[in-house]
Structure formats: structure tokens, C-alpha cells
């Protein structure tokens, strides 16, 4: 396998704050320092991009010392939190901005898809925009000519192809834009969150197309927040954190590292209340293997694990777990059958199939005894649980299935 992208020590420094007042003045100071061979007075060395803390200087390393090699035919996923530097890396590779230090070498024709429909002009027709957008993305006129029918066919809006795109619905617009992008045939393709538009079935279509592009042996760099699509599409992945390359490996390993990072410290602890006969000490949400998660993929089973300390023998103890929306609409309550328990520390593990559609809910906990006649403890919003739809090309959920969705065995028999 030959290396088609080689990145050495790439760093990118960004200036924060308002551009405008004072810029000229600062520029002059900077220029003066440069002449006198002093350090840039506005560049603090070593400060990294941590967005929720205000830094000392107003300059930020969006990327710091990135080294990476990508082989031909690799489909490399780039993951990381917002502001980790994913898009900046793609922007440097696609020459939209230049790095502050380092060097990157590329072999082969490269095209970037940081947004679909770039350069679409509302007054031009669909057909004219295919040519415009194609040319902007680096296609030659005869290449577009050859694929025009295919593009129009793929977009599925043949009837409106000679209508100005400003008359299009947003869905048609996106479909046309994606049709152009899908027929781009570069050796290296950089894609950034393009799938964030369109409905779920359209996103699944995009993923299928990208999968087929990848299978043609082209090199793809794919930035996404959508772990599910990275998992499906990519064989390798890198994890960026605060501008640094945190991990590189197979897609599965990298995703695990990433999820570990975001879901860490997600065991919520509560105060010890020794005067009570029983009290909750901890709650956590995990996947089926009891690995802590904050976010549960829809249709994946999960566990809620509650630690309870019981200070003396208790009769007919009940643990109730309630789900409610953040508007305080109660959705559902699970409770265990009344049980008598000795003094001790217990784990209550509730395993269930996931029946929720995407959303965020609060989990409320209630402890009671004597078959619910006496409440011991009630914890409102003990934990937030989040269900997310990781897009999978084989599975597309519509958005209007309701809050609760579940697949179920249904008895089927001939009616007579």
C-alpha cells in the first residue's frame, strides 16, 4: 500500500475574539516584534484549545503537532468532540487555510466536500448549477457532460432540472447537491459532516453511496460526530482531542476510546444518609457489558445500575425508577416486586431492551417499604439518560414513529 497523504507536525494557531478594532494596532506590534526578532507578543506557547475555559491569550492551537499517514484505499474516520480540530484538519488538507507549522504531502487528485451545494446560485437552474457546483469541486466540463444524465437521474428531480434552484424545496436542493457530489471521482475525498442535512432515509442513502465510493479503492477521510456511521464506513479512525492526536487505530478501537472519554465519570454519587433505613449511593447507565455510557443508541439494550445501602432489615422494599421528560411529564415507571432485604450494600441491575426513540430524559429514583406504604427516599433527576439515533445504512428510522418504538414478535397464522 502506498502512502497518499503524509502529515508531519501540522499545527494551526487561531486568533480568537473580534477582528476589527485594535487589529491594526496589534498587527503593528506583532510586526515590530518580528523586526526585533522577538517572540510574537500575542502567541502564548503551549496553550491548547479547551473551549470551556477562558485562556490567557486570545490565540488557540486548533491543531498541535499532528503526524499521520494515510494509505491508498483507506477509509479513515476522524472523530472527536466539538472543537477538537477535526474540521481544521480537513480545511488544511483541502487548502482552504494554511497550517501555522508543519507540512502535508498529498498524492493524487483531492476533492473536499465540506458542505454540499457550495456555490449554488439561486437564480440559476438546476442544470446550470450542476455545472457550476461540479466545476467548483474541481470537475472538468467534459466530465460533467459525461455524467450529466446520471447526476440528474440520481437526484430524482428531473422534472425541475430547468427551474431556478431558489424555487426548490430544501429537500430537492440537498438531493441535487448530493447528486453532484456523489459523482465526483477524485482519488482522495475529504468529507465533513455532510450527512448532517436531510432526513434519516436520505442520510442512509448517502451512507450507502459513500460505502460504494470506498469500495472502489478510493481514499476517504471522513469527519463525523455520528459514531454509528464511522463504525459502518471506516476501517481506521483517529481521535482528536483539544487539537492533539489522541489515538489512532482501527475504527472500533478508536470509537471505544472516544466513548470512554465522553462517558467517563458518569457514575453519579449521592450523599450518605445514615439516618435513613435505606439510601441510594450511586447510579449509572451502562451498555449490555456494563460499560458506562451517557448515550444509548436506540434499539440497543442497556442497563441501569443503582447502588443502595440498607442500614437495617427492611420488609417489602421497593425500588422505583421513573422516566420523565425535562418538561416534567412522567413517561414511565419501572419497579421491582416487593422484597425483604437484610442490612448491606446492594446493586440493583435493571436490564431492558431499548424502546425509546431519540431524546433526553431524567431518571427519578424512589425507595419505599411496606409495599409502597412508606416512602424512604425520592431523588428527582438522579441522572440524565440520552438516547441517540446513530445512523446505520441498513436501518433507517423515520422521525415520526413516536417516543417509544419497539420491534416485537408477532404470532402469525393462517386465518383459516
Amino acid at each position, binding site marked *: 500500500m502506498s502512502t497518499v497523504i503524509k502529515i508531519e507536525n501540522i499545527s494551526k494557531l487561531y486568533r480568537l475574539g473580534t477582528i476589527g478594532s485594535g487589529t491594526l494596532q496589534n498587527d503593528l506590534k506583532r510586526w515590530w516584534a518580528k523586526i526585533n526578532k522577538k517572540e510574537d507578543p500575542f502567541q502564548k506557547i503551549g496553550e491548547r484549545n479547551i473551549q470551556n475555559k477562558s485562556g490567557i491569550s486570545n490565540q488557540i492551537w486548533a491543531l498541535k503537532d499532528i503526524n499521520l499517514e494515510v494509505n491508498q484505499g483507506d477509509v479513515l474516520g476522524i472523530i472527536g468532540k466539538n472543537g477538537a480540530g477535526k474540521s481544521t484538519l480537513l480545511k488544511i488538507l483541502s487548502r482552504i487555510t494554511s497550517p501555522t507549522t508543519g507540512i502535508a504531502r498529498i498524492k493524487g487528485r483531492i476533492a*473536499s466536500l465540506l458542505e454540499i451545494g457550495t456555490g449554488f446560485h439561486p437564480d440559476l437552474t438546476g442544470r446550470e448549477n450542476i455545472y457550476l457546483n461540479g466545476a467548483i469541486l474541481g470537475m472538468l466540463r467534459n466530465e460533467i457532460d459525461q455524467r450529466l444524465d446520471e447526476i440528474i437521474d440520481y437526484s430524482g428531480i428531473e422534472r425541475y432540472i430547468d427551474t431556478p434552484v431558489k424555487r426548490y424545496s430544501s429537500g430537492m436542493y440537498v438531493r441535487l447537491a448530493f447528486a453532484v457530489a456523489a459523482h465526483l471521482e477524485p482519488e482522495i475525498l475529504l468529507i465533513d459532516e455532510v450527512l448532517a442535512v436531510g432526513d434519516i432515509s436520505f442520510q442512509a442513502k448517502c451512507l450507502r453511496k459513500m460505502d460504494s465510493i470506498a469500495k472502489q479503492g478510493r481514499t476517504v477521510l471522513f469527519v463525523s460526530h455520528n459514531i454509528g456511521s464511522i463504525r459502518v464506513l471506516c476501517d481506521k479512525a483517529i481521535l482528536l482531542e483539544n487539537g492533539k492526536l489522541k489515538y489512532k487505530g482501527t475504527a472500533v478501537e478508536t470509537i471505544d476510546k472516544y466513548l470512554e472519554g465522553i462517558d467517563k465519570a458518569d457514575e453519579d454519587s449521592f450523599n450518605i444518609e445514615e439516618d435513613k433505613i435505606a439510601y441510594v449511593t450511586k447510579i449509572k447507565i451502562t451498555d449490555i457489558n456494563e460499560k458506562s455510557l451517557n448515550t444509548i443508541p436506540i434499539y440497543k439494550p442497556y442497563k441501569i445500575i443503582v447502588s443502595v445501602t440498607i442500614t437495617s432489615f427492611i420488609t417489602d422494599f421497593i425500588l422505583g425508577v421513573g422516566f420523565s421528560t425535562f418538561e416534567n411529564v412522567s413517561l414511565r415507571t419501572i419497579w421491582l416486586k416487593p422484597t425483604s432485604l437484610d442490612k448491606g450494600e446492594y446493586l440493583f441491575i435493571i436490564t431492558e431492551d431499548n424502546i425509546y426513540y431519540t431524546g433526553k430524559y431524567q431518571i427519578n429514583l424512589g425507595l419505599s417499604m411496606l409495599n409502597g406504604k412508606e416512602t424512604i427516599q425520592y431523588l428527582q433527576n438522579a441522572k440524565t439518560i440520552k438516547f441517540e439515533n446513530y445512523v446505520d445504512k441498513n436501518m433507517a428510522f423515520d422521525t415520526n414513529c413516536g417516543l417509544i418504538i419497539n420491534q416485537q414478535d408477532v404470532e402469525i397464522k393462517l386465518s383459516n
Partner: protein
Amino acid sequence: MIKSNSNNWDLTITPHRGWFDFHLSEIWQYRDLLKIYIRRNIIAQYKQTILGPIWIIIPPILTTLVFTVIFGNIANISTEGLPKPLFYMAGIITWNYFSTALTSTSNSLAGNAGIYGKVYFPRIIIPLATLISSLVRYFIQLMLFFSLLGYFIINNADSIQVQLQLIWLLPVLVILMGIQGLGFGLLFSAITSKYRDVRFLIGFGVQLLMYASPVIFPLSIVPEKYKWIILANPMSAIVESFRYMVFEVGQVCFNSILYTLIFTGGIFFLGFLFFNHTEKDFIDNA
């Protein structure tokens, strides 16, 4: 494995691009995009207008009318014996081409940050396309001028001496104006991408500059003492030459032409240099 691919990289991305690293071959590579942009500029501008491309000729007609009344009839400024509308229109369309070339290209970087921020192509494609599409407008206005000329020749043939053996000068003048406008435009777009204040200056400045050129008066009536001010304007010799080319009136001297040539070359080089230097990461400032 043999290290076969260590040297043949197609593209190298580095922090600092040399001032003189122009990537000219890329413009050729993107020639289709240039063509499409030119077409788009022309089509998109007049879509959903009732009069369409007629808007190209309305402004010079109205300006000529106003100048004829105010500067010709009220202020009574000499037009060197030429019919007033002809004299003014010759100046107006020439100046218009220059000022459109300058103002429309001067916002290239800041005005297209949206596209530039999403995809790479040689940044100069957009100002280049803008320049060329304004050339189309210029030729239409030129036809208007020659129609007016024809009208005057038919109606009072003896009062104007038209000579066409100098017509070969026309492309030279057009290229000079275009390059000069583009040079200024590139320079300003490099500056405005960072310091937006300059934008306010441009429109206003170009307007003022017109009064320091022989658009509304012939160079011959300018007192000797102030003539250098007018001649310092690099467009003056071009405006004057245009009239000389058609009517053989006006003062065109070798020195002022040489000055214009050098100035045009210089400003274009400077503009191109700054534009080229700014384009690689202006998107961080825009």
C-alpha cells in the same frame, strides 16, 4: 518495501507560501470554472429583471444626458468642438469600465468568503471572471457609443472628423484599463479581507478620482499649473487616448502614455502579489 513514492508528491502544503509562488498553471487547470463563473455573472445579474440586459445601456445613456445638460449646457465646459453627448459618452463608458473592474473585484475575497471557506480553487478565478464579465458589458456599451457616433455622422457629417486607422489601439486601451482596474481591485480585496474600513473608501474614492480625469472636460482646458494632477491619474491618458483614437482630438503625449504603462504594470504586479499572499489564509480573518 521499496521506497518508490518518496519524491513524487502531487501537492505539498506548507505554512508559508513564497511571495512569488504564483501557481499560474492552476488557473489553466480551472479554466472551465472560469468560463462558468463568467457565464453565471452575466446570466444571474439580469435574471428576474424586466428590462434584462437593457440595464447595461441605460446608465450610460442617462449619465450622458445629465452631463450634457449640467456640464455642457449649464456650465458650458468645452468639448473640443465635438457634439456634447459623444464627448461625454466616450469618457463615461471608458471610466465605467475601469471603475466597475475596480469596485467589483475589490470585494472578491471578503464577498466570497462563504465559498472560499468551503472549497479550494485558485482564488483569483473569481476576480478574473468578474473582470471578464464586465468586459462584456463594456462591449455592449461600446456598441451604444458607436451607434450614437453613427447617428451624428449621418445627421451632421461635417462637424466631426472620424478616423478609424487608430482603431487597433482599442484592444490595447481595453487591456490597460482592465489590468489597471484588476490590479487595484486585487490590492484592495487583499486589504479589505482584513481591514474592512477600506471598503468604504473605495466606492467613494473612485467617484472622486473621476473628477481628476478628463471625463467631463478635455485636458486642453486644464491650466498648465494643475495639469500634473490630472495626469497623475493613470486613467487620464487612457480616457484622452480613447477620444484621440476616434476623433483625433485631445492631448496625448508620449510621457503620459509611458507613465500609464508603467503604473498599470506596477499596480497589477503589486495587487497580484498581495492577493496571492493573502489568499492562502485570509479565511481565518474573514
